[in-house]
């Protein structure tokens, strides 16, 4: 376990020594700050839409950080050939995969935390309300969803040739799931066979990332989601992450690193 934590530590050090995170954070912080400070015609509805947009911005920023950071991990190790002295130590390829996953997940966890603390601070200072439990649920669910995404990206980075291809493909897949995932079953009902069965199969075979979006709870209903549902969603994320990491390990364990 120490080896996995050591590998994760290097991933986190790399992230905070690069500029990606700071640029995204400053941009998101600026936009969140400006949008939250503006009181559009004293209309609560508009203010909520603005808050919704701020949370969407946090979602996009953390997704960008997660996907971009994870996609380059293993290809960069191979390209810079740092994988060679590493694997000459008593480290298995399984530990490399797990260490990379843990590092990326913890790093994006820090990003999620920083964004939510900032969002809560801006909102709290304006509305004098601190719904900490709601924020915690939203941040936790988002972090769980990012575990699935990071697992998916690690898998992609083993099979796709370049990090840019992995980033593009995963962005399209994630955007597709977030946009269409919840509607696939209703779309299936309106189709004739065999399309109905095909779409239904797709609906049950994809990881439903859209379930982790609690923006409506934070912005509109301002209530807690049932804790049991949060627990179930966490387990669902753990299962999907496990599947992706297992597939990544299958690809990586016998991959020739010298060609």
């Amino acid at each position: 376990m120490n080896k996995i934590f050591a590998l994760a530590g290097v991933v986190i050090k790399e992230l905070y020594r690069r500029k990606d995170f700071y640029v995204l954070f400053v941009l998101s912080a600026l936009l969140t700050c400006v949008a939250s400070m503006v009181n559009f015609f004293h209309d609560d509805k508009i203010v909520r839409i603005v808050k919704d947009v701020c949370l969407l911005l946090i979602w996009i920023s953390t997704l960008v950080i997660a996907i971009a950071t994870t996609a380059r991990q293993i290809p960069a190790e191979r390209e810079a050939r740092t994988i060679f002295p590493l694997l000459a130590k008593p480290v298995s390829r399984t530990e490399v995969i797990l260490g990379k996953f843990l590092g990326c997940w913890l790093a994006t966890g820090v990003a999620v935390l920083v964004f939510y603390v900032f969002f809560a601070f801006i909102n709290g200072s304006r509305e004098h309300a601190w719904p900490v439990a709601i924020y915690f649920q939203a941040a936790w669910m988002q972090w769980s969803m990012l575990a699935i995404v990071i697992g998916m990206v690690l898998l992609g980075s083993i099979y796709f040739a370049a990090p840019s291809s992995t980033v593009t493909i995963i962005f399209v897949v994630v955007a597709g799931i977030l946009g269409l995932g919840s509607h696939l079953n209703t779309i299936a009902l309106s189709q004739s066979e065999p399309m109905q069965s095909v779409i239904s199969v797709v609906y049950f075979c994809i990881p439903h990332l859209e379930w982790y979006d609690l923006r409506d709870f934070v912005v509109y209903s301002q209530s807690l989601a049932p804790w049991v549902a949060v627990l179930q969603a966490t387990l669902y994320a753990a299962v999907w992450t496990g599947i992706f990491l297992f597939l990544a390990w299958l690809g990586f364990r016998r991959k020739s690193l010298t060609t």
Partner: protein
Amino acid sequence: MTAIIQTQALRVEYRSRELRQPVKLALRGLDLEVCAGEIFGFLGPNGAGKTTTMNVLLGYVQPTSGMASLFGIDVRQPIARQRIGYLPELTYYYKFLTAEELLRFYAKIFGIPREEADRRIAALMKLVELEHAAKRPIKSYSKGMQQRVGLAQALINNPDLLILDEPTSGLDPLGRMKVREIIQRLKNEGKTVFFSSHELGEVETVCDRVAIVHEGELKKVGTVAEVSAGHDNLEKAFLQVVGFKSSSQP
């Protein structure tokens, strides 16, 4: 004597990704044994199979058939590499880390306790004369300094076997001298050193035994005196083994 490195009928084939390209045989049943406490030079022309052998020993490449072991443990098991140090030909390290952080990271990988790691890092930084730059990112180092970091990381676990791939290539005379000193020191401590090199004069000076591989096969193995018997020096013996004929000769 105990065999530290052992390969038996080691065969490695590289399959081309392109259609109708023949399979490339990198190793054709290599049998090799390196014993405890010896300095072993692994020689051969480019493409002979030296790097492939090292890649198999380090677990980068899976053998097509045959067996390879370190300290009697199959090289496919990561624990086989617990007691080895490896210095690659070129420096491949995380350039955003400082030398101290890099050594600490590798110390964690080897499971060295923190206090012991601190002590070793300080000693190694002194050995490779990088104390003044220990807290600077590796990306700001010169090539020579990066190679010295490489040497330090290869020694962090106080290895019983050191695998060196062209350890002196690209080093200035001072750097070469330092590497030779370290190899000699390790020999005096009873460690085993396995290294590949094209510097035959150097091999002649430091090695107890040498092996010459050519076209994936072991052509000759023995002490330097045995291998160079009947020739002026090791270089002449090497050229004869690999079938080199000078164009200036009739």
